């Protein structure tokens, strides 16, 4: 009796699987609900996520939006793949597209529209117990450049007024867009960075590192500083004119917090714009960006830039073309 039932159960299981195996061959990718597929940088993710959330609320579930975090490079790989199963409609990017990625897109016959959507201010932070409040770009360079590896190990080696304490450095991993940007702005193009710092892709790990070590210094996106102000102290950056500036919405927007503020982008597949759900989503994105960007502790672009971006979208202007200098 018992044996019988078990056999029946097993038989049922096998049958179910057989049908599954047979039918997975059938094209299953088509979804009846229209979906906007987005992937890419983890830096841009919070902004796009906020937009997606609001957008789906506004549409009451009629349109689905997926937002992935594969990194800027991973995002472009999918965006430009020409492979329908992985291709995305929109790619989040914390840096402009690179020539080789542009090549890949061209090879797959994909045209894209580049839209800057916000600023991310890289924030240099130290432990609140650290007496240092500001530093120059030159000092940052001395601290981080290749030549410092193994030789600059104490704070006072950089500036004699700084403490006689060991220097421990934290930063995003060398494969991140944030890292690339920092290196480019502080050390200059093709200048190498010291490799004896602790990298992490998980910015909270960096927050933990700096907040627990009085001799630590690190840098990451402004949002992580803003949310953890009680555990961290931001360093005012002196671009070389003797006036150190702390990062804030105002200083980024009026251009005084340099050179560590950078624009972040979304890239839109031009072909996808033909789909009404994508078009609607991008429109919604640009209209709501100013408020939502602020809400997730990023810094919005000046209003005229958003207007220009809307214009570019309407004209379907493709390619890597800066909206204005610095974007």
């Amino acid at each position: 009796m018992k044996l019988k039932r078990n056999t029946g159960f097993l038989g049922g299981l096998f049958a179910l699987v057989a049908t599954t195996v047979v039918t997975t061959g059938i094209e299953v990718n088509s979804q009846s609900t229209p979906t906007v597929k987005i992937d890419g940088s983890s830096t841009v993710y919070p902004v796009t996520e906020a937009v997606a959330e609001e957008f789906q609320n506004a549409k009451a579930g009629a349109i689905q939006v997926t937002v992935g975090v594969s990194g800027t490079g991973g995002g472009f790989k999918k965006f430009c793949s020409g492979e329908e199963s992985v291709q995305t409609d929109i790619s989040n990017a914390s840096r402009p597209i690179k020539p080789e990625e542009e090549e890949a897109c061209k090879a797959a016959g994909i045209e894209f529209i580049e839209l800057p959507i916000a600023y991310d201010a890289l924030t240099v932070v130290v432990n609140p117990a650290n007496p240092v409040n500001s530093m120059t770009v030159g000092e940052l360079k001395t601290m981080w450049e290749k030549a410092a590896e193994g030789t600059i190990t104490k704070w006072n080696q950089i500036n004699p007024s700084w403490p006689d304490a060991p220097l421990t450095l934290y930063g995003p991993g060398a494969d991140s867009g944030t890292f690339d940007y920092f290196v480019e702005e502080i050390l200059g193009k093709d200048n190498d960075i010291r490799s004896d710092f602790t990298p992490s892709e998980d910015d909270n790990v960096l927050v933990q590192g700096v907040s627990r070590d009085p001799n630590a210094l690190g840098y990451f996106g402004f949002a992580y500083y803003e949310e953890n102000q009680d555990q961290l102290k931001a360093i005012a950056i002196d671009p070389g004119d003797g006036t150190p500036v702390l990062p804030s919405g105002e200083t980024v927007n009026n251009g005084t917090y340099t050179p560590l503020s950078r624009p972040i982008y979304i890239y839109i597949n031009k072909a996808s714009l033909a789909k009404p759900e994508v078009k609607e989503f991008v429109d919604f994105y640009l209209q709501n960006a100013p408020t939502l960007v602020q809400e997730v502790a990023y810094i919005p672009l000046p209003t005229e830039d958003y207007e220009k971006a809307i214009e570019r979208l309407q004209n379907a202007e493709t390619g890597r073309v800066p909206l204005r200098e610095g974007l």
Partner: protein
Amino acid sequence: MTREKKLEKSAQLSPKLVRDVREKIIELVLFLAAFSAVATTVAIMYILIKESWLFFNEVSVIDFLTDRKWTPLFVEKHYGIISLVSGTLVTSGVALLVAIPMGTIAAMYLSEFAPSRLRELIKPCLELLAAIPTVVYGYFALLFVTPMLQKILPDLPGFNMLSAGLVMGLMIIPFISSISEDAMRSVPVGLREGSYAMGATSLQTAWRVVFPSAISGISAAYILGASRAVGETMIVAIAAGLQPRLTWNPLEEAATITAYIVQVSMGDLPHHSIEYQTIFAAGLTLVLMTLVLNIMGHFLAKRYREIY
């Protein structure tokens, strides 16, 4: 032929034929299922080798094996896998130093000392240790174990292989204890009685008879534990620091192969660049390391099965 005769003939012949064919088909289907294991291995090797090919076209195998630095993402590039291997080995070593003694003692206690009801209760609880998501363990190591260790060792950096290894060891205990216990329990009861009949205590029986009799099963458990440790990802990625460096000191921070792979797969590198391809070369190294461990474990386990 009359109808009856036909029926009779089919009743004699065809069921046998049908039955034989059916049996053969079933055997073939089952064989294909079993062969899927081989197919998976082949697929893993194919993907890893195919993807590392690009990498090894650019970087010589000799550099890969002998260079002492791993900086593929910097301008001055070095591809010395040994820096990642050292991190992997040190964290695994620390983990095994925790897990092997604790796992063995726990297994011995469960198999030779604990009353059966207690064993039935404890065993599944211990197995839950392996069920906790490793992300949780990673933060446990970073936010709890490290600060605690820093009270004893004030110079300990915030990221270090010691605390990652210790926590990883905790996670591996059930793998070791559960397999070791099975091996110990499968030691024939006659051997145990033989020992008790000589006036041995439980400890003496466990240590002098049961343990040596089950040694190949137990070492297979150790090896499985080791390959778990080598392959563990999230704990080391969160707590050990991600800075590749050639060091054998567990008090320092270092990156492991697995941590490097997740780091890059979540990062912003363009795919198909040589930098990105490094993760496949690293993955290949990892697979080869575990392969050696596993084959050793397989033969040990086989030997232990043949004794009885």
